[in-house]
């Protein structure tokens, strides 16, 4: 079994992954970050406060120097630059300067000041005066407008969380945020962190965590770190809470970051009576090299499979809006064909396979690739169904004859979406049928909704073959489905296995690769 990652590096050498399209859009407006870094080092690095004239000159140079900084947004920009925890006094100094000259700071500036307070709070507890200042700002902002917008709510939440007694006021603010948009990751994370830090608010914290994940926001590392720190201090409830955390991670297929994994290892050393944690790797066939247990298989239960297949079958029958590019006659013809020739061992998406190595190839090469894949299965004595389109008849005759002789072939006419046919055939044949396609099926996963999506993903992981590449000699390398689970779960003998990634990503994509790093955890009750 080849290591897919290594292969990819060999095949496409060079550099980090290309930037996604979303990272090219909407470039940052206010100059690149290194320009602002220069500004930071010029003026702000070692100073605790600047005089009125110096602030004036800073403002002036910013307005003159940058095209998009004008009188309205220069204050917020300056406060955005001094956002580090050591620059709290500088930020306060600037706000005082604004108060002394002219109209005073606007709402955005005050919001950013609250952010700086929050950053400072994470390094040291805030003094009484500072907390009073925060409360005053919050009061004034809330009094000015009945319903606040999402950004202001977020800044207020960060500010209130930095105080010791008044953080509960942040909860209705979260609700207010929901009026205009889903609350952001940082707002949820800040509140959840604070709630975990308090001794009696664990239920609230768990509720917020659930809400956050259901809104498809990935919780930040700090949330887990705060919880683990508390567990280290209160060993009594540690195992229950830890079990709850692990079940939560399993239910939502969350991959924690390295920081959290290291903290878990530390926790294992701090509470040796309650749990034992070791780093681990996976051997072949999903065997943990530390505890020598096999990981759970990824198969879904009969009931879940029935639900999933019902869903798809009804869709192909009813032909809802999303897949209207087909005719009833063709669907009927396909269903009759499947009834006749089912069950299969594998259903192949012909066009997807043929175009795997590049779209601009000659038809002979495409047909040959398809024939090679069919031969791969024939060598293992499997029955396959190949789905394609009418124009494939015109491809190289020899290859297509081979395919026709060694597999069942069904050709549709000018269909845009052949996915429903593929999935229908696979599901109709039962739990043992696999399918062959490089398509990630993200649309389907999304359309199924939050309930069925994890079930669909597990089924997909268990059954999807995909073509990695074709070597020079014409041999193909096929990625076989991974039959064991890839997320946090409990192996049969009771050890929890926790995979982790290197760094936190706000929007993790569903990937079917085996994570490299695992932790082997056993809770002693």
């Amino acid at each position: 079994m080849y290591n897919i990652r290594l292969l990819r590096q060999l095949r496409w050498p060079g550099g980090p992954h290309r930037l996604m399209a979303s990272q090219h859009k909407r470039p940052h407006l206010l100059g690149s970050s290194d320009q602002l870094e220069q500004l930071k080092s010029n003026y702000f690095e070692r100073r605790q406060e600047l005089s009125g004239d110096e602030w004036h000159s800073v403002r002036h140079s910013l307005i003159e120097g940058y095209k998009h900084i004008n009188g309205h947004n220069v204050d917020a920009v300056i406060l955005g630059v001094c956002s580090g925890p050591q620059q709290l006094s500088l930020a306060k100094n600037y706000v005082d300067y604004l108060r002394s000259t002219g109209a005073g700071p606007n709402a955005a500036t005050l919001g950013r000041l609250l952010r700086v307070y929050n950053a400072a709070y994470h390094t040291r507890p805030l003094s009484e005066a500072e907390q009073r200042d925060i409360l005053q700002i919050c009061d004034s902002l809330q009094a000015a407008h009945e319903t606040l917008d999402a950004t202001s709510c977020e800044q207020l939440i960060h500010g209130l969380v930095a105080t010791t007694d008044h953080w509960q006021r942040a909860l209705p603010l979260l609700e207010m945020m929901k009026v205009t948009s889903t609350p952001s990751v940082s707002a949820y994370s800040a509140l959840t962190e604070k709630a975990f830090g308090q001794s009696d608010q664990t239920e609230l914290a768990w509720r917020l965590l659930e809400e956050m994940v259901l809104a498809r926001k990935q919780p930040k590392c700090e949330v887990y770190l705060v919880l683990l720190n508390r567990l280290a201090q209160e060993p009594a409830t540690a195992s229950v809470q830890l079990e709850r955390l692990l079940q939560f991670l399993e239910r939502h297929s969350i991959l924690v970051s390295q920081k959290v994994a290291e903290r878990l290892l530390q926790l294992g050393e701090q509470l040796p009576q309650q749990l034992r944690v070791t780093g681990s790797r996976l051997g072949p066939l999903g065997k943990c090299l530390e505890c020598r247990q096999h990981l759970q298989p990824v198969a879904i239960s009969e009931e879940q499979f029935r639900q999933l297949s019902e869903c798809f079958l009804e869709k192909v029958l009813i032909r809802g809006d999303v897949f209207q590019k087909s005719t009833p006659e063709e669907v009927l013809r396909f269903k009759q064909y499947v009834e006749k020739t089912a069950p299969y061992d594998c259903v192949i998406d012909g066009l997807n396979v043929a175009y795997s190595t590049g779209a601009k190839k000659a038809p002979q090469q495409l047909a040959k690739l398809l024939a090679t894949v069919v031969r791969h299965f024939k060598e293992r004595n499997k029955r396959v169904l190949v789905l394609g389109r009418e124009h494939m008849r015109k491809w190289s005759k020899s290859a297509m004859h081979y395919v026709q002789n060694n597999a069942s072939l069904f050709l549709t006419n000018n269909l845009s979406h052949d996915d429903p046919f593929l999935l229908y055939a696979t599901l109709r044949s039962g739990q043992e049928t696999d399918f062959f396609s490089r398509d990630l099926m993200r649309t389907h996963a999304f359309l199924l909704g939050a309930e069925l999506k994890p079930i669909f993903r597990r089924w997909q992981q268990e059954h999807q073959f995909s073509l990695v590449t074709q070597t020079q000699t014409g041999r193909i390398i096929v990625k076989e489905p991974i039959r064991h689970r890839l997320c946090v779960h409990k192996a049969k003998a009771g050890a929890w296995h926790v995979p982790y990634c290197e760094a936190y990503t706000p929007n993790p994509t569903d990937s079917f690769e085996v994570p490299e790093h695992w932790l082997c955890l056993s809770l002693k009750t």
Partner: protein
Amino acid sequence: MLKTLRPWRLASHILKGCAAPARRVSDSFKTFGGEIALAGSEGTPKKFANPFAQSSPAMSDGPAETEEDREKRRKVLQLEADIAHQEGRRVPTLDFFQDHHWDHVLSLPSKSARIKYYAFLWQINMKKEADQRKKAERAEDTERRIAELRKEREENTHIIYGLAHTSMFLRIYDTTINHWQNNRLTRAMQFAPKMVLDCSYDTHMNNREASYAAKQLMLCFAENRLNDEPFDLHYCNAQMEGRCMQSLKRYIPTMLNPEFPMNVHKQCFTELFDKQSLVYLTPHCREDLVTYNPDDIYIVGAMVDTMNNEPLSLAKAKRLGLRMARLPLDRFLQWGSGSGKSLTLNQMINIMLDLKKTGNWDSALKHVPRRKVVDMDSQRRTEDGRKALGTRARKLNVRIDHLLDFEEERRHATAFAAPPQALRQRKEGMEFQLDTWSAGKKKKKREN
């Protein structure tokens, strides 16, 4: 990824079908994820609802919003825009926003949609400011220039000849041309064949499509007016409160003035014209339009259907019992794999105008953009033509290479595909040398 709202709303409505409580106003503005949260947290023991089993597309958003809820929401969104502007994001100042902008903002479904819309408005604002700055600079230059000119004229005792001074050329202003063209239009209203643009598809288009449709309608009017023999254009079923007509009014503010030669009707074309003479041009029917009949009144549906695939114009024509036809595009053109067979409204009007004038489909269909048409066929046709011409010229001992070169160059300028490499370069030994022309025996080159 999903681009239309309807499948989202469909699935969400099905998921929500299990949730009984009456929805508050804020619910209808939650994002998709939030709605799933609502349904997902209801608990699994309920009967499993198939997210794909939808009965009919539900367009309504639940209980209607009251006026004060709308006002409150508008205030919050104004605050949002204000704060974003203060932070230096891509949002224009609050005074740039007008009422119709806020109406559009209130209809957007999510925060990211609003951010994109604000960015669009910010871009317009920045362009406007840049234009004003440039105009101010140019105004200064013009001031200086006029002052110098005046000084020169005072000092100079002779007559100055030139375009702005004494010249034999009459200055023709834009308004003169406009009046002349409007006059042509009024004559067309009396004598020319009629053409109808059916503007009843406002509800089937989203905001962007409606504004594109308005721009195309404006271009229809303009290009019709430009032509030597314009049609008598009628805009029927025009609801002035709809988005399409509002945008058209912004393009042509004097649209509804009685003296402006544009026929805008609120009624349907069946009430204005005789049903026997109406022909609906729709791409979804089976009969081709073979010859142009000047007694028929042709109807074009004013709809931009990038999102919508349904044959709405066909359905409407069938319902009203009108004759239908489609342009014979397949017969005369080879469609490339480009952007599909949809034509814009002004292209349609141009095609009909040319058809009326010449009766020749090839020249009429020149108005279809070349990028949609495969060029190989036309290339081959011209190659054959050129070869025949070449043999004939050689028989008559006439040199035509310089003409062919000119043709080729001109074709290169408009062709997309690279022409196949000629085996022999015809140009060798055929350049025109002035010094040696008729100065001695022609030296025959071996290559030729």
